[in-house]
């Protein structure tokens, strides 16, 4: 169990001074780690999708997946640190996601009208 101890000097331990007390029944036994594992797994699925899929729209959908994973981590930290700032930040994540979707999809439609293809590889001449 001690195989990670060399890493522990690299990582700050968060907020050990939180007050302990009764909790709503529903979340008494799920730890923050559960949520972070879910969030990290979803983020990595998003990254894999972004790297592997060639359809431009699906690539942007994968960035939304990563936003979503970050949102879960934000809300989990917000709840476990008893601070509403995390939830507030998810509102801004939503804002950026909406703006990104509008702009990126407008660009995608433009690119599709030019090449009649959604293949990301069709635009390799732009890599400069």
């Amino acid at each position, binding site marked *: 169990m001690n195989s990670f101890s060399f*890493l522990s000097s690299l990582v700050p331990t968060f907020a050990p001074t939180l007050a*302990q007390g009764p909790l709503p029944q529903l979340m008494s036994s799920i730890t*923050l780690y559960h949520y*972070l594992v879910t969030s990290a797994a979803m983020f990595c699925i998003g990254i894999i999708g972004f*790297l*592997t899929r060639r359809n431009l729209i699906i690539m942007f959908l994968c960035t939304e997946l990563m936003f979503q994973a970050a949102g879960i981590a934000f809300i989990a930290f917000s709840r476990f*640190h008893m601070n509403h700032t995390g939830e507030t930040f998810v509102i801004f994540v939503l804002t950026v996601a909406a703006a990104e979707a509008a702009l990126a999809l407008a660009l995608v*439609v433009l690119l599709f009208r030019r090449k009649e293809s959604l293949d990301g590889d069709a635009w390799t001449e732009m890599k400069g």
Partner: protein
Amino acid sequence: MDLPLSPILLFAGCGLGAIGVALSMPRKSVSPYIFGVIIAGVAFGLVMLGLGLKNPEAVPNYYFYIFSAIALAASLRVITHQRPVYSALYFVLTILASSGLYLILSAEFMTFALIIVYAGAILITYLFVIMLATEAPSEEQPDILTEYDRVSREPIVATFAGFVLLAGLTTLFAVGLPNVKPGDKLDAGDRQLAFMSKKVEPILKQAGLLKVGESVVPTRVETTSYGMPKDGDTTLDAIKIKAADGKERLLPRAEWPPTLVLSNTEGVAFSLINNHPGAIEIAGVILLMAMLGAVVLARKKVELDEVALNAAISRQRAGGEDDLGTEGPFARPGTGEGGAA
């Protein structure tokens, strides 16, 4: 150190998940995605079982496992499904499941904001664009899937990279976070009540804690940069009450009526307006710029480039009478007025 999960189990789960995802990516031959999904599901179950066995009282807590399993399975289908429309619909399922996770975390406002904004607005935009930018199926080929949807690019390398990242992230979480316990029910958000005199006053009056002529003085809560209360702050958990003659007294938290609680929406709103007013302005500017940019981009007249134009010409010749339209997206170079200008 007491880790939340044995590292062997964690790495085994990551490896199995990687194999599963790599198998389920679309590829040229028949992709064995059923097996991939099963293997990835086994990996997820292994990790979650390990997490559950480590603290046995976690096992009866089904809701988290149900929602996160649905969210991860649906997001796996987002990246593996060959049809973009289905991918978008699976993404809606991911959104719904993760809003369930938000609900478990008692973030009710964000739960419904997420469903309305993401599933209701953003995903509909995606669906529109997918349907706009997909070639219509013809008579003889009602079931076309383009080549870039059928075959993924470097599935094994990308999956390996992604799951190495996942293993690293979860390992660091395991090292850094096992000590974080959920906080008290009366949380930092409830402390904001001392500032909300308009909300507090009627509740205190109803509970008979506010005498005639007395009023609540809003006091700002001093917190550290982490949002934690400062140590040794005695006025922290108290509401300041001012009598008619100017005398002030403190009502400590122990004497607060049970009806005096801060709802999630009030907490988020308070945090948003009180602590981040500048960020709201910036968010507004971002949305405005995105709207302007989208309008400018969408109005632009596009010339087909050489390859696509030739393809369109030959297709229309084969099609017959239809003359080459100069309007709409298929304007020929030179005839369209807007163009690159």
